[in-house]
């Protein structure tokens, strides 16, 4: 089924992301992207890792059209981002900002979460259902009437997450979703990612939390200095300590332990690790 822009809530429309040889320079002169190419198939879960200033946020801001490529091309399905407004792109790409305070505009949590669906022209009943479901997902149903700034920063991050979930876009992008979250918050966000994957949606995240990446994302892209250093299955990419080290990243804790113990495999989960170690006794 093809999204014609009239059915913005069609979450299952096949919507590949294609980034072709994109370079981008900020007005300050910073070359943030240097010839980035990648393709993300519908339903993939991709984590982007890399050092501060590597160009991760600049790259994802190209996917919803917030930034337009200096050279090269970005397409989301049949839409070239240069030919569509950010407001229109929002029907296909939901983006949760790194800093929630860059995103929040409304005076109550409920209105904030309803903002996107309303702008997308979702019918009222559907809008209400989507907002209620999104608030429930992040555990903020009770806070619907609260002013976003009366919540803590990690809670505000969950508000912005709910705002994007309520838009029911085929592609969802998170910029540092676990930042400032405690163990319960990280687990909640992991569950949300898993649910989006189960619904067949495409999920991209920027993260410094490599253990979170290992647990929920099948594919990892490593960036440094505006370029893609490595791109492949997370189970492979995240074990390449030498590549990761060049961009200030270390493999997940279990991979480092497996490597220090010279295990043949580098398991990504506690269960796999225990099976490997106890099984080899």
């Amino acid at each position, binding site marked *: 089924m093809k999204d014609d822009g009239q059915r913005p809530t069609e979450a299952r429309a096949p919507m590949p992301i294609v980034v072709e040889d994109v370079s981008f320079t900020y007005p300050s002169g910073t070359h943030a992207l240097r010839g980035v190419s990648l393709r993300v198939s519908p339903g993939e879960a991709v984590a982007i890792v890399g050092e*501060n200033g590597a160009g991760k*946020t600049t790259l994802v801001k190209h996917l919803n059209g917030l930034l337009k490529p200096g050279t090269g091309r970005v397409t989301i399905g049949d839409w070239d981002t240069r030919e569509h407004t950010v407001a229109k792109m929002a029907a296909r790409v939901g983006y949760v900002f790194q800093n929630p*305070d860059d995103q929040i505009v409304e005076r109550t949590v409920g209105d904030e979460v309803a903002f996107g669906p309303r702008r997308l022209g979702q019918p009222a009943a559907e809008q209400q259902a989507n907002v209620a479901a999104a608030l429930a997902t992040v555990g903020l149903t009770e806070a619907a009437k609260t002013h976003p700034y009366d919540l803590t920063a990690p809670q505000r991050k969950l508000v912005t997450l709910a705002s994007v979930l309520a838009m029911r876009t085929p592609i969802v992008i998170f910029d540092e979703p676990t930042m*400032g979250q*405690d163990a319960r918050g990280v687990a909640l966000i992991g569950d949300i990612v898993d649910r989006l994957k189960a619904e067949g949606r495409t999920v991209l995240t920027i993260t*410094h939390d490599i253990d979170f990446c290992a647990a929920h994302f099948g594919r990892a892209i490593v960036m440094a200095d505006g370029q893609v250093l490595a791109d492949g299955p997370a189970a492979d990419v995240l074990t390449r300590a030498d590549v990761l*080290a060049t*961009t200030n990243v270390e493999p*997940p804790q*279990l991979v480092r332990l497996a490597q220090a113990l010279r295990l043949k495999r580098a398991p990504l989960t506690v269960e796999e690790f225990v099976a490997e170690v106890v099984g080899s006794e």
Partner: protein
Amino acid sequence: MIRLRDVTYFYPRATTPALADVTLEIPAGQFCAVIGANGAGKSTLCYTLAGFVPHFYRGKLSGGVEVAGVDVPASSLAKLAGHVGLVFANPFNQITGARFSVREEIAFGLENMGVPLDEMEARVEDILGFAGLRDLAERSPFALSGGQQQRLAIASVLVMRPPVIVLDEPTSQLDPIGSKEVFAVLRDLAATDAATVVLAEQKLEWVAVFADRVLVLHEGRIVADGLPGDVLASADLTQYGLQPTRYTQVARAAQAAGFRADRHDLPVTLEEAVEFFR
């Protein structure tokens, strides 16, 4: 040196205390990590040590707070500035907005302290190198990435060399190696310069490796206080909304499957885990 005695604090209009009966002594030269779930009181403790509670947030504070020899409730934020430095969780709150470059931003606190120009330049240069900001020194603080802004926030406080350094989740946006480096620097500041360092953090792997001591806050109270190896391996950790490091998790799961059932001390660091499984 920090001394809290029976500290209880309510934010304005709050009916439950953000801190309750907190009694605590942290000697100079100690690197103390504060962990706990969101809402446990970590930020409030940081604000209390730096005087933002009660001088900025108002509310109702009872008990004694003494930091670097200063009676905090009886003092003012201006008087505390030379004694205690606070790094906020959101670097955006730290940036003055009154300076046009990273270099000037870092110098801002030193200018206010009246540090002589040549010394100021040397100290700023020094901290630019340490914070990995030398290549960005002439850039606007607002043209930095999230992680770079966080490095700037840390640098702006450390350059003032306060005897007490308080940091509220200062590495949340830093890349993994960058986070680890901040922990190492804080340990060195405590060990070498006898700074008192209090760090609210979620990254238990580096707390385990670098901190001298770990406090667990839960609903405004201190519920555990001890060496990282003891506190972080404790089975109680999860009930306070915290997740042990993967090293502790795999060791505990392996024990449940019969591996090294005789061992009582579970690993909290990579090094200890290697020893446990070898």
